[in-house]
């Protein structure tokens, strides 16, 4: 601790003597700091209100003694005021006891804090309070404390280090201290705060940076560039990638809405089901690889070798999840062929994952999934048990839909033959071509409808905050459908009642009032503000802007 003795004589001279006795060996920049300190001290003193005569005395003495002495004088001053127990004295006391050495700083310049007297007593007060807590940990510093107190001096680089170590949770809300604290590595703050302490802004309260750790982190990050996960372009290349999607995929396995982005989910599912699949393929060889046993086995082995570690533990679950989710997605996926194929691939794909691996060269996820799905679908079709297994796994999938999709992919397969590789060129062809007219009759009509409904179904599962069954989600879709029909009917009635053929927002508001959503207490605007994003709110709620104009126009 500092060597200050509260009972000693409080004259500055004696205190200074004492301080001088405990010499600080490290002040390489003494002359500069002395000068800087003197300048600073002068500034501070001009800013401060010359609190006490002893302070002035100290300043004079400080100037005479140079940096170290200046700092010491600060301490002396602090100790001198101990008896008074003002915030300032407390602060000074703490400064006295602050640790002297800092690891970081070779130039822990004494920055002789001019009038440690602190520019703002109020701030010191809080800082003192907090500093006091750290008192026992800090070693007596002689040069650091004043340096810390000196606000607005950029050169004080690592002064803070000791505070950083000893005061990790230092609130940093104190202006002068924080300014000096932040100066170490962050951009220096308030250089002008010395002149106008009252106007100086508080720096953002943040933790002081530990120089050593910071540099270390810099080096580490520079050496190891971030591992960017390319989800869409390299579906099977990185087993680690398969890990993370699986991690976030397994929790929402029940609610399929875990993946907001369908493509992302498709890609992740594909990947995760891929590694999962290859572990399953050996488990269910007869079921899955009946069709193309040789190729599939080969690919499965490849997969095993590449990502065995990743999928080892939860091989079966992700597979089933992937299948179920894939089926679920099949019913809800959009019109685009690639989307359909991507999701459809999930469903029947077990053996096709290894085949999909071969198609990594395509470097296109949809293509890969489509291709994977094609041969897999063909193999699945050829295998009766496999086909039977799929509907079992996905109870909710309309079989007609599934059969249609498989059929579509089966068509290109027979022509090129049963070989996987030969089916690959067929799959890309299939992907690029628009869906066949024969098989896409009802699909475009239903799928976008389902896709739109799935939008609200996702909201449902989000609001529910509980895991849900697939059947429950289908039920929600049906309810939504019915709700839409009722809504349209009601709107028609309201518009007809108003003698209009156009449904206006007033009709919708009346509908909501009838539903009980809009009441005398809760107006429509309140609901709009609460539930709709800002962009829609702008469109719905008229707002006046400059030029005496209202938007949207009434």
């Amino acid at each position, binding site marked *: 601790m500092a060597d200050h003795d509260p009972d000693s004589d409080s004259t500055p001279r004696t205190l200074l003597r004492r301080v001088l006795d405990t010499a600080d060996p490290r002040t390489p920049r003494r002359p500069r700091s002395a000068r800087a300190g003197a300048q600073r001290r002068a500034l501070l003193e001009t800013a401060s209100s010359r609190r006490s005569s002893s302070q002035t005395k100290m300043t004079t003495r400080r100037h005479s003694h140079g940096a170290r002495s200046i700092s010491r004088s600060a301490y002396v001053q602090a100790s001198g005021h101990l008896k008074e127990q003002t915030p300032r004295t407390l602060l000074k006391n703490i400064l006295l006891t602050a640790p002297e050495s800092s690891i970081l700083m070779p130039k822990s310049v004494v920055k002789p804090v001019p009038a440690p007297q602190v520019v703002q007593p109020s701030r010191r007060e809080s800082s003192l309070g907090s500093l006091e807590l750290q008192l026992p940990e800090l070693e007596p510093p002689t040069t650091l404390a004043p340096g810390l107190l000196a606000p607005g001096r950029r050169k004080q680089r690592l002064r803070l280090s000791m505070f950083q170590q000893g005061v990790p949770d230092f609130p940093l809300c104190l202006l002068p201290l924080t300014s000096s604290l932040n100066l170490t590595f962050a951009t220096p703050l308030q250089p002008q705060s010395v002149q106008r302490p009252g106007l100086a802004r508080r720096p953002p309260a943040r933790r002081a940076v530990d120089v050593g750790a910071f540099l270390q982190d810099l080096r580490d990050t520079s050496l190891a560039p971030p591992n960017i996960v390319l989800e869409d372009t390299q579906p099977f290349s990185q087993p680690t990638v398969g890990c993370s999607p699986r991690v976030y995929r397994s929790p929402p396995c029940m609610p399929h809405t875990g993946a907001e982005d369908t493509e992302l989910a498709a890609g992740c599912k594909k990947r995760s089901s891929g590694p999962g699949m290859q572990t399953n393929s050996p488990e269910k060889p007869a079921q899955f690889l009946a069709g193309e046993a040789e190729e599939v086995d080969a690919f499965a082995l490849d997969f095993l070798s590449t990502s065995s570690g990743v999928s080892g533990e939860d091989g079966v679950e992700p597979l089933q999840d992937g299948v179920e989710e894939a089926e679920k997605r099949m019913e809800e996926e959009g019109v685009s062929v690639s989307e359909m194929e991507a999701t459809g691939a999930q469903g029947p794909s077990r053996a096709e994952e290894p085949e999909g691996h071969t198609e990594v060269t395509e470097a296109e996820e949809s293509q890969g999934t489509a291709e994977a799905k094609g041969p897999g679908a063909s193999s699945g079709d050829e295998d009766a048990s496999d086909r039977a297994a799929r509907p079992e796994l996905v109870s909710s999938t309309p079989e007609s839909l599934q059969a249609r999709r498989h059929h579509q992919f089966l068509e290109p397969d027979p022509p090129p033959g049963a070989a996987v590789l030969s089916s690959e060129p067929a799959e890309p062809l299939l992907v690029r071509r628009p869906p066949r007219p024969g098989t896409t009759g009802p699909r475009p009509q239903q799928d976008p409808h389902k896709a739109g409904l799935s939008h609200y179904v996702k909201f449902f599962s989000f609001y529910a905050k509980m895991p849900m069954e697939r059947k429950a989600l289908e039920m929600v879709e049906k309810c939504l459908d019915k709700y839409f029909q009722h809504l349209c009917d009601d*709107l028609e009635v309201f518009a007809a009642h108003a003698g209009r053929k156009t449904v206006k927002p007033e009709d919708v508001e009346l509908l909501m009032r009838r539903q009980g959503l809009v009441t005398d207490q809760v107006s429509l605007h309140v609901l709009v503000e609460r539930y709709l994003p800002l962009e829609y709110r702008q469109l719905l709620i008229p707002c006046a802007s400059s030029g005496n104009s209202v938007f949207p126009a009434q």
Partner: protein
Amino acid sequence: MALSTTVSQRKQIKRKAPRGFLKRVFKRQKPQLRLEKSGDLLVHLSCLLFVHRLAEESRTNACENKCGVINKEHVLAAAKSFVE
């Protein structure tokens, strides 16, 4: 200067309303009617609120039955309570 009626393309709205879907559904149901510009946003709002209430109700039902998972029956019961 009045704000534009359309949101600039670069803006990514989270929780977008499927305006095209809503318009299409309305058109399919009532081809003789027309829907006004911002009307479908309000329709979307009402759907959101409906889904919200349905979810709350089915969650309550599931909790009452001490199920950790929302079942089809819970959703059905909640929807029935909504049939006015």
